[in-house]
């Protein structure tokens, strides 16, 4: 499979009044053509910052400490401002979290949808608007022609997110970054937007990075999953590997915290504690203070990635050959049993 995006050893600091925040601490991942990679993690884990780096849209107080971002063979971090403007909305586009605020309230939507086309191609205004109608219809805005002159406030939240998607895909980008595109929507609308994204992916053959903190959404859309915690990726694998054979205690916690039909407990599980302060990241494994399976070495040394399969690896000392065998939580054991049954059939 051909790689379209490769992020290697990315580290990003933010200069704040309180000090330097190490927001991204050496992140590696890649994205293949046409696939969907979900990046999962709680707020502040660095999902969005990583994506803004890919877009070349980092805030002024952010600095790239190390790493490369290769998009279609070119280093994004080395690009000039002009080259970045040419890249954004053309090779890579982004869908934002809150459709209520991500459209310009004083511009008709037709103009907003046509804008990327006018910026990146030699199209006339009339042609661009025609294309806007086509794309708006594609994303499910009915009667798009007559609604071109309408303003964002005349659309519902779900419709607005469809318009945001139309803006993102009008130039057929090779990479589409969806930054929690369903978080601000009703559950029923969420499902519609997910299936829309899947349909569009097929139609324009784009790779999608889907950022979310909702594992339930991930199962429905992703090919592969990367789990982020405190500015690092802690586990990655195919969607099946992450859901049925998770290795990292943080992934366990996330899966346990997800309600399932077999949830019998009265209270939903929550991972105890809070994420670490990235002003002074702790020594050793950042997850250790919240990890009931933490060992002495977790306090002292950061775990490297231990491969589980060709596609699956996790950064936890539990996978070290010398580590004692631990009993995962009930829910995880249930999942691993399903995995074992599947493996046996294969």
């Amino acid at each position, binding site marked *: 499979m051909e790689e379209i995006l490769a992020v290697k050893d990315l580290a990003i600091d933010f200069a704040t009044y309180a000090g330097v925040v190490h927001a991204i601490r050496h992140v590696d991942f890649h994205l293949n053509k046409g696939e969907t990679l979900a990046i999962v993690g709680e707020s502040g884990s660095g999902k969005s910052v990583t994506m803004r780096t890919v877009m070349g*849209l980092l805030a002024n107080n952010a600095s790239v400490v190390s790493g490369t971002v290769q998009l279609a063979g070119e280093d994004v971090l080395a690009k000039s401002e002009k080259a970045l403007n040419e890249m*954004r909305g053309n090779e890579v*586009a982004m869908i934002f979290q809150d459709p209520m605020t*991500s459209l*310009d*309230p004083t511009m*008709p939507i037709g103009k907003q949808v046509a804008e990327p086309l006018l910026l990146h191609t030699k199209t006339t205004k009339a042609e661009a608007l025609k294309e806007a109608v086509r794309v708006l219809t594609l994303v499910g805005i009915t009667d798009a022609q007559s609604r071109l002159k309408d303003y964002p*406030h005349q659309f519902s939240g779900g419709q607005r997110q469809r318009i945001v998607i139309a803006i993102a895909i009008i130039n057929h980008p090779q990479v589409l970054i969806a930054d929690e595109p369903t978080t601000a929507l009703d559950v029923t609308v969420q499902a519609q937007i997910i299936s829309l994204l899947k349909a569009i992916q097929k139609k324009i053959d784009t790779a999608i990075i889907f950022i979310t903190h909702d594992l339930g959404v991930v199962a429905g859309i992703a090919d592969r999953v990367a789990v982020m915690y405190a500015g690092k990726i802690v586990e990655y694998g195919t969607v099946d590997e992450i859901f049925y054979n998770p290795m990292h205690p943080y992934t366990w916690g996330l899966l346990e915290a997800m309600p399932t039909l077999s949830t019998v407990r009265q209270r939903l599980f929550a991972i105890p504690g809070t994420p670490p302060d990235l002003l002074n990241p702790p020594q050793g494994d950042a997850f250790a203070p919240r990890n009931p399976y933490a060992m002495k070495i977790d306090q002292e040394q950061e775990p490297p990635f231990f491969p589980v399969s060709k596609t699956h690896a996790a950064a936890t000392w539990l996978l070290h050959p010398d580590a004692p065998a631990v009993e995962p939580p009930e829910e995880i054991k249930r999942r691993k049993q399903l995995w074992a049954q599947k493996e046996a059939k294969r």
Partner: protein
Amino acid sequence: MIKYILKRIGFLILTLFLVASITFFLMKLLPGTPFNNPKLPADQLAQLKAQYGLDKPAWQQYLNYLWGVVHGDFGTSYQFTGQKVSYLISSRVGPSLQLGAQAMVVGTLLGILLGAVAAIRKNSWVDAVATIFAILGRSIPNFVFAALLQYFVAFKWGVLPVALWEDGFSSSVLPTIALAMAPLANTARFMRTEMVDVLSSDYIELARSKGDSRWQVVARHALRNSMIPVVTIIGPMAVDLMIGSMVVENIFAIPGIGEQFVKSITTNDYPVIMGLTVMYCFMLTVVILIVDILYGFIDPRIRLSGEAN
């Protein structure tokens, strides 16, 4: 939209009526009479009063006045015997209107520009200079600017006329600058604050992710959205300008309406006070009406709610 404007014009007339009524009775509370020559014998005074209807009770004078106004008659001045108030105003309103309009346009446009640049280059030296400029513009009264401009630009360097209204446009340059300082500073402050807000909003980030450059994003998306609150202060700024122009007109000896107003109050020239108050009030309400219509053009959300009413 037309229905909305008609409704607003109805309110405008009501406002004018209320202002005229209140001013009339307030004016009656002013001490003294228009005829305060101490040598005037009592019988002549009584005759004068009778001639102008001032011997009648206040309510009757009020009704007479309103009756006149409805028929387009604002009375005659006491100061300049026999001069119609409408003529007095119309012959002097030109310079005042020109100055006010010029100051307004120059002030708001430059203010928008200055505020926008300050916001885009936030925390840079440009921002610092713009901020200092805005603070000076707001805190120094316009008559100080007027005097400084008069002294340096006109008197020392001799570039522009010192005073009077005899050289056409070049006579209006210095008073316009003096008057424009306050609206310029106000607009710049509002514009900067709002623009900083807008530039960090989601739709600006989305526009950047479309491939808009830093300047394209400002021109296409940020400017218009930042101008919404600026429109709000145009009304109050217009009031400031009307009041400010009285002083500045005096300094530059411009035969404008501001000067006339001050003089009419000190001489108890009732019909002129009334006429000018009503005119100021009229101009102000029209400015506010224009501002409200302008709102709709800038912000589509308001346009539609206006139609719904």
